[in-house]
């Protein structure tokens, strides 16, 4: 019972923060809440161990990020592109909202693993070492994914076109499988 009380406390305190991060990882409100639910259910099953060995926040972040990456790879790309389908703001560097939207849309076009690195770095403010721990990979991989992601975003934003639909990766008929690591060399 004490275990359940502690877990209940965790859910109540952290639900909102988890949903915010989940939304940035998935780009969809419904999927974000499903992702948080799946994460919490896993935590619930292993709560005693989580509480004893890990930081619950760290464990939640790890499970949620990896589930998000895994789910995104399974999902067809056309599902993602439909989110962009409505009118896209025209590019106007002086318009802060349009600019923000474009940054967000460019982020959404990145492979899920790269997107996760950027969300953990620039929203959760984790260090490269902490991101590496969450993703279970080396710091070098995080660095390369981070710079590759920013470079691709720059390319999308500098192309002069709104990232949505005009970019080949945003074509609704495409499915995208994403490289998840470059660090398997022994």
């Amino acid at each position, binding site marked *: 019972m004490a275990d359940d009380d502690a877990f209940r406390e965790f*859910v109540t305190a952290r639900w909102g923060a988890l949903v915010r991060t989940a939304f940035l990882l998935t780009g969809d409100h419904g999927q974000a809440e499903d992702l948080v639910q799946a994460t919490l259910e896993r935590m*619930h099953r292993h709560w005693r161990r989580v509480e004893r060995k890990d930081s619950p926040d760290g464990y939640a972040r790890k499970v949620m990020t*990896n589930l998000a990456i*895994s789910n995104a790879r399974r999902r067809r790309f056309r599902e993602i592109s439909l989110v962009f389908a409505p009118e896209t703001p025209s590019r106007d560097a002086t318009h802060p909202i349009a600019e923000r939207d474009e940054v967000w849309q460019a982020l959404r076009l990145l492979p899920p693993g790269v997107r*996760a690195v950027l969300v953990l770095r620039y929203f959760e403010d984790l260090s490269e070492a902490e991101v590496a721990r969450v993703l279970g990979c080396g710091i070098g991989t995080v660095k390369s994914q981070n710079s590759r992601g920013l470079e691709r*975003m720059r390319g999308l934003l500098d192309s002069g076109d709104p990232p949505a639909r005009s970019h080949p990766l945003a*074509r609704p008929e495409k499915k995208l*499988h*994403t490289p998840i690591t470059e660090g398997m*060399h022994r």
Partner: protein
Amino acid sequence: MSLDLEEQLRQSLSRQADTTRQMPTDPWGEFTADERRHRTARRIARGAVGAVAVAGLVAAIGTGVIALPGGNTATTSVTPAAPVPALVDSPTRGSLAQNKTWLKGLRTALTGAPTCCGFQVVEHSPITIVFAGDVPGRRLALVTVLAQQGGTTQTQMLWLGGPVHATPSRMTLMSTFDPGNVVTRMEGTEQDGGYLVVVAPDQATVQTSLGTDRGTGQRIWTPGKDGIAIVAAPPSPSAPAAKVVVTLHGRTLFSDEPTSEWLSGSTPKGSAVPTDHASETNG
């Protein structure tokens, strides 16, 4: 842009996060209600699988497909539809299929290899190499392993890639996904083009198309062989309008566009289409 990209990204993420709905008044109540629903759904699913299995068994006994001891063996049996063989039951295919040293090296490289994104091949995992060989611009391997990811252990398929002629230790994990009977992958760049590869059960008929004839507008189809198709994709600013159709015993197993990763303006992994003749050692 007035701000550098990293700062813009911070602001954008923060704004977007604020669009999530307000915290429910009782998150714990919502969590437990959903958890109960999920648990019930899992039980129903397990029950349904069991019921189907029992019904199948009863039907099989009834029709004489399965003979009971002392039963009437003269009963006319109903020939069931030919099952679709699992992809993992097909022999290893590809240009490296007979290269036992290379395949053995790949198994060794996979076991316990440090990977990314929380993905880890479990110790002593059975490893099935479904495909291993060179395609235009890459060496590829498609394998099935038991892997840990996101706190769970499950069978996963992996695409591993490396430079043409790469040794097993130079193969890199490119993607993971749930096992399927038809696996497709198209990869390429604006400058160098790339490839389309389809891996299906070995008796399957594979047809691939990377575009249409300009004169007639009809798709141009290229047949594969033994359940495998490997086609070079020409350089193009965007991914070719590809289509894959796979049939087996008159059944369509797959009719869709392939999974695609096509980069405009640069080459995957940030290098020219890789070649690595110096590292060819067959093991």
